[in-house]
Every structure is written in structure tokens, then in C-alpha cells.
């Protein structure tokens, strides 16, 4: 489909800016594994401190890249399926806010005034610019959502008897989750943290801040994941040369995500005081509910891929797998998506370990956790973002992909790296290796009296895997930025692969309406979070003043 000049420019900016920043994010990923394994035993390298680098790594890779991509990809799907361009002013304003917010937060981190990690747990205090910048990024991402609702309603009016396309449902579900969950973090940031970091308010309730953060923080992972799920359902079967086994399975999966993504955030707080065990176990059980749509997806996609392989003449119970187009340059997206799915098998299962209430005692805040989430956000999420970013870059700029062979092998190399890296971190976690710790200074420094030889092997595996991941990242950058530098050779377009459904599907009204699902969503959130927030308020008796990460004495303003 032809695309207007203004939309094209905005989308290209929204794809280019985060990938450019990703070079910093991935550099600090490599530095983490080097520091952690004790290869270097220093607080900083090249003027950037370990915890400052960790903040850059988390904020860029997990917040900036994912949010920019979700917005750009949302624009592309809404435009492609409703055949209408989003509002020009809204789109521009949103991009401006997101870029300016990112710049503000990045400046605060690079100046060393916001080394509080991407979870920014108070009472550690960052520079106000960090909080304001992050809030601008989030608010910028709300604007297209409101615009897309209008586009969806207009489309509905014009096509009353047609089922809403799965991609449109997926995008709207995703941004509904995002909008609702970010309300909590916006309250935490704008009402609690900003006045407190400016010195207008002396002390705040830390347990309330943590509970609001995790109201947002777990739903955030579905905001990362759902664009990949949209690609799995609407593109992967087509890329494999087949059809989607069931479109309604996809609709059911997305609506279950809508109702269960948020009311499970307390499973990040099993070790926290002040919140009752009843709330914790309820949210633990609900987390198993949110595994159901992933089971549905695994089945539907596997069935679709098998169908595609059999169309290509495959036989046998398992050998059909080898008929899939794994290393074909022309369908390189297949490689990105299938590797993401393979990683997600392990990512999903280890996630269930984390969510399993008292079993969480074994792994909470150990390196098992980053081991797990590099298999999810570093797996299907990251690979789908990389693959789709270069795909859209090539289409929107009308340029052929530079070094297509590199681009094709990137997801495979990345997957090998992540598997080794995560195996190391998870093994380390099971023997007590802490996350987010510059272990090269103490625990993995042989000349320190805190040296702990148990963690040598696990952190070395992390280093080996991290090195491979970094290499895959470099190859991707060569391909991505190489493409940017090429000459235009075709008309700019947006053309997404579209999977037809295998069976003729009638429109099911319940699966084509947001209202009942939104009502259930609101009810469950209220029932689970009202007691959590009331616990946090009632069982926390002392509020906390702000602290700089460098200083055990609180910041006091007269």
C-alpha cells in the first residue's frame, strides 16, 4: 500500500531512533557480562559506571526500543488493515513527545544523575529530568492509541458484518493494556516521585510506590510481547507458505491477555513485606491463567507450520519441520519469528517457575530472573522487533536490505548466544548468584575476601553467551545501517504478509467486541488490586526521604 510522505517520515524516525540507541544498549549488555564474570574488576570503564550502564541497558532495550516499536508497528497494522492513515498531527505530536522524552531521560542517565536502573525503585532518587522524560515517552505513546480507537470505530461502521482483523484486535488489546497499566506508573512518577525528587514533598510510602510500579511492570511484559504475537498469528503461517490454523484462537488469546495481564503484578513482590499472603497467592494462580493464551498460541502456530510444511511435500510425524524455509533470504522474517518461538518455550516455562508462589523463594532477584527474561524479552520480543524493523525500514525507504545473508543468520546466532547466556545465569541463580551486582569488584574478584568460587562457571557461561549475542547485534547493525545508506530502488510502501485462515470462519460476536472483555478486565483488576493497595497503605508505617545511589545519608532540603 502507498503511504503518505509525512507518515513515512515519522515511521522511519520511530524505527531509526531506537535502533540507533540500541547500539549503546547492546554495548552495555556486553559490558555487564564482562564486569559480572570478574574479567574486569572496576567500578567504571570509559567514564561509564557499571550501574549507570545497567540503567542505560534496561531503559533503552526494555522501555525505549519496545515502546517506539510498538507505536510504529501499531501505526503500520492499523493503516494496513483499516486502509486509512492515522491523524497526521496526532502522529507527529506523539513522535515528538517520545523523542524529546527519551532525550531528556538519556541526558540524565548519561550525566550520571539517574543510576537507579529501569525499575527506579524509590527511595533511590534520580534527577527529575529522568522521571519527566520517561513520563513524556509514555504519554507520547498514548496519543496514537486514542487515534486508533477512532479509526477502529469508523472501520466498524463501514464494515458491520466483517470480523475485525486479528492484527487490529491485537494492536488495540495491546494498547488498552498499556494505557491502563501506565496510569499506575504515571501516578507513581508524576504524583509521588517528581514532587519528592524536586524536594517539594519530604517523604513517600515505598510499598505503595512498589505496588504501583508492579501494577505496570508485569503488564509491561505483555506490551512487549503482543506485537510478536500479532506477527505469529498474522504473518508467520504465510511466511512458512501455509495458512493460519484458527483465527478465532488468536482472538481468544488476545482477549485473555486483555483481562489477565494486569491483575498478576504482585507475583513480582512475593518477598515484599506489607502485602498479605492471600493477595499473593491469588495473583500467583491468575498468572497461570495468563499462560493459557500462550498454550493456545503454541498449538495454533505449530499446527499452521505443520500444514505449511505438508503443502511443501513434507511427510512423517516430525520430519516435516525440515521443510520450513529456515535460511531463505527472501523470507528472513521467518527466521526471526521461529527463533523467537523456540526461545519462548524456555522463557515461558521458566516464567512459570518465577510465578509459582513459594518456589519463587529459590529464584527471586537471583540471576535466574535475567536468565529467564532474556529468553522472553530477549527472545520472541527482541527478535520480532529486529526482524520487523529492518523489514519496515526496507519497505518505507524503498531500499533493498544491505548484506542480506548477515540479516538472515542474525536470529540463529542470537538464539545460540541467548541459550548459553541464559543457561549460565539461571544455573548461577540456583546457586545464589545475585542479579544487578558488579560482582567483579567483590564476589568474583579473587583478591577480595568476599570471593565466591561457586559463581565462576555460571558467570563465565554468561560471558560466552553474551559475547555471541553482542556479535549477532553487530551483524544486525551492519545490515540495518547499511540499508539506511543505500539508494532508493523502489516506491515506498507498507505491505505486511497476511495469513489466510485454514477454515472458513464465521463472525463470532463475542470475539468481535471489546465491551464485555473490558468489563471483566475492570472487575478483576479491582478485586485483586484494591486489597493489595490497601495492604501497602495500612501496613507501612514509615515513609522514606530520597537517597542518592552514592550516599548513605538522605538528601535533605531546607
Amino acid at each position, binding site marked *: 500500500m502507498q503511504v503518505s510522505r509525512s507518515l513515512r517520515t515519522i515511521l522511519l524516525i520511530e524505527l531509526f531512533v531506537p535502533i540507533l540507541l540500541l547500539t549503546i544498549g547492546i554495548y552495555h549488555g556486553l559490558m555487564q557480562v564482562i564486569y559480572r564474570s570478574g574479567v574486569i574488576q572496576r*567500578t567504571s570503564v570509559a567514564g561509564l*559506571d557499571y*550501574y549507570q550502564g*545497567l540503567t542505560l541497558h534496561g531503559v533503552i532495550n526494555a522501555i525505549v526500543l519496545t515502546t517506539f516499536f510498538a507505536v510504529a508497528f501499531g501505526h503500520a497494522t492499523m493503516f494496513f488493515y483499516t486502509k486509512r492513515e492515522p491523524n497526521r498531527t496526532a502522529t507527529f505530536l506523539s513522535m515528538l513527545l517520545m523523542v524529546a522524552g527519551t532525550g531528556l531521560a538519556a541526558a540524565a542517565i548519561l550525566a550520571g544523575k539517574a543510576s537507579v*536502573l529501569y525499575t527506579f*525503585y524509590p*527511595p*533511590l532518587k534520580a534527577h527529575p529530568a529522568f522521571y519527566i522524560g520517561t513520563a513524556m515517552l509514555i504519554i507520547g505513546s498514548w496519543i496514537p492509541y486514542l487515534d486508533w480507537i477512532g479509526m477502529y470505530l469508523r472501520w466498524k461502521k463501514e464494515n458491520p458484518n466483517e470480523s475485525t482483523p486479528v492484527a487490529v484486535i491485537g494492536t488495540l488489546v495491546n494498547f488498552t493494556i498499556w494505557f491502563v497499566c501506565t496510569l499506575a506508573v504515571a501516578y507513581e512518577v508524576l504524583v509521588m516521585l517528581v514532587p519528592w525528587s524536586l524536594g517539594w514533598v519530604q517523604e513517600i*510510602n*515505598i*510499598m505503595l510506590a*512498589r505496588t504501583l510500579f508492579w501494577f505496570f511492570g508485569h503488564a509491561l511484559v505483555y506490551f512487549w510481547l503482543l506485537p510478536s504475537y500479532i506477527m505469529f498469528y498474522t504473518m508467520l503461517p504465510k511466511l512458512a507458505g501455509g495458512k493460519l490454523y484458527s483465527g478465532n*484462537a488468536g482472538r481468544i488469546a488476545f482477549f485473555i491477555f486483555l483481562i489477565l495481564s494486569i491483575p498478576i503484578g504482585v507475583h513480582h*513482590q512475593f*518477598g*515484599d*513485606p*506489607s502485602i*498479605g*499472603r492471600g493477595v499473593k*497467592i491469588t495473583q500467583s*494462580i491468575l498468572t*497461570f*491463567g495468563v*499462560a*493459557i493464551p500462550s*498454550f493456545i498460541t503454541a*498449538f495454533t502456530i505449530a*499446527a499452521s507450520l505443520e500444514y505449511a510444511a505438508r503443502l511443501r511435500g513434507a511427510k512423517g510425524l516430525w520430519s516435516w519441520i525440515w521443510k520450513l524455509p529456515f535460511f531463505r533470504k527472501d523470507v528472513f522474517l521467518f527466521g526471526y519469528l521461529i527463533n523467537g518461538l523456540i526461545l519462548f518455550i524456555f522463557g515461558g516455562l521458566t516464567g512459570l517457575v518465577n510465578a*509459582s*508462589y*513459594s*518456589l*519463587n*523463594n*529459590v*529464584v527471586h*532477584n*537471583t540471576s535466574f530472573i535475567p536468565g529467564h527474561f532474556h529468553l522472553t524479552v530477549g527472545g520472541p520480543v527482541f527478535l520480532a522487533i529486529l526482524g520487523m524493523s529492518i523489514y519496515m525500514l526496507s519497505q518505507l525507504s524503498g531500499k533493498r536490505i544491505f548484506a542480506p545473508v548477515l540479516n538472515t543468520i542474525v536470529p540463529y546466532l542470537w538464539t545460540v548466544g541467548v541459550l548459553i547466556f541464559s543457561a549460565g545465569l539461571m544455573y548461577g541463580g540456583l546457586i*545464589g548468584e*545475585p542479579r*544487578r*551486582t558488579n560482582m567483579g*569488584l*567483590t*564476589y568474583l574478584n579473587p583478591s577480595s575476601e*568476599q570471593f565466591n568460587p561457586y559463581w565462576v562457571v555460571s558467570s563465565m557461561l554468561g560471558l560466552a553467551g553474551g559475547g555471541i549475542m553482542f556479535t549477532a547485534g553487530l551483524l544486525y547493525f551492519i545490515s540495518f545501517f547499511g540499508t539506511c545508506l543505500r539508494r532508493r530502488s523502489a516506491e515506498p510502501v507498507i505491505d505486511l504478509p497476511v495469513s489466510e485462515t485454514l477454515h472458513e470462519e464465521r463472525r463470532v460476536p463475542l470475539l468481535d467486541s471489546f465491551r464485555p472483555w473490558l468489563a471483566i478486565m475492570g472487575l478483576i483488576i479491582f478485586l485483586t488490586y484494591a486489597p493489595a493497595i490497601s*495492604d501497602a497503605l*495500612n*501496613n*507501612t*508505617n*514509615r515513609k*522514606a526521604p530520597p*537517597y*542518592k*545511589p*552514592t*550516599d*548513605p545519608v538522605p538528601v535533605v532540603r531546607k
Partner: protein
Amino acid sequence: MLDRYERNVIITALTVSALFIFSIFYALGAKRQDVTECLPYNKTYETARVEQIDGRTYQIFYVARMWNFEPAISYIPVGSEVDLFVTSLDVVHGFNVFDKNVNLMAVPGGVSKTTVKFTEPGVYKIVCHEFCGTGHQNMEAEIIVNYPRK
């Protein structure tokens, strides 16, 4: 409406989920594995100390601050049951006891509590596993279980 494969998959998914949820309750009931108790906070938790309740029962009140735990070293007889209370006086800290599956957060204004039994002699290391500022990687404590010697 459902085809045979879809039905089988739904049954499998529900069975697997039921198995997981059963395991959670099994660990909770039969194995007595639970998460921190939820206690109302008061000022007495801000004083670090070890208290002996009777011959086999102890209570250790941990206070975390940038960048150490108090008490830094506690001695406990083999075979005792120990209640651990953890709070923080400044920022959020973590509290992980090796090999004992004790995993708590130290949060200002709140107190985490769990109970653990030490049946084997040894030095049980505690590390802070939540980022708490530039000295985070130094933050350790020990529980030494060696007395009375067997």
C-alpha cells in the same frame, strides 16, 4: 465447532495448568514452604539483635542499610529454628540466605518475616540482591551454625 486436535490441546493445557497449581498447594501444605508473613510495622524492628526464645528457638532481627546488614555475624546452635525479621533504614535491599531458600525484601517502613530451621552446621552467607546504590556489591552477612559442636 471444535476439531479433535483443538479439543485435545485444550485438555492437555488445562491438565498441565492444574498440575502446576496442585504443586503450589502441595509445597504450601505438605512441605511448609511459604512466602514472607505480613506483619504490621513498628519501631522495635529498627533495632538489630539476636534473641533466644528457648533452647531451640531464636529470633534474629536484621536491619539493612547502605551498605551492610546488622547483625553482621550471628551464631546459632545446630538444630535450632530461627525466625528472621528483615527491615531497612534507608533504601530497598534484598536478603537471600544461601541454600535455605530464604528470599526476602528489606523495605523501609515494612518488615518481612520467615522461619527457617538449621539442621546442618556451616557458614550460611547472606547477600543483598537488590540494587541499593554504589556499594551494593559489598553487602553481606553470615549466620554461623556450629555451636554446640556435635
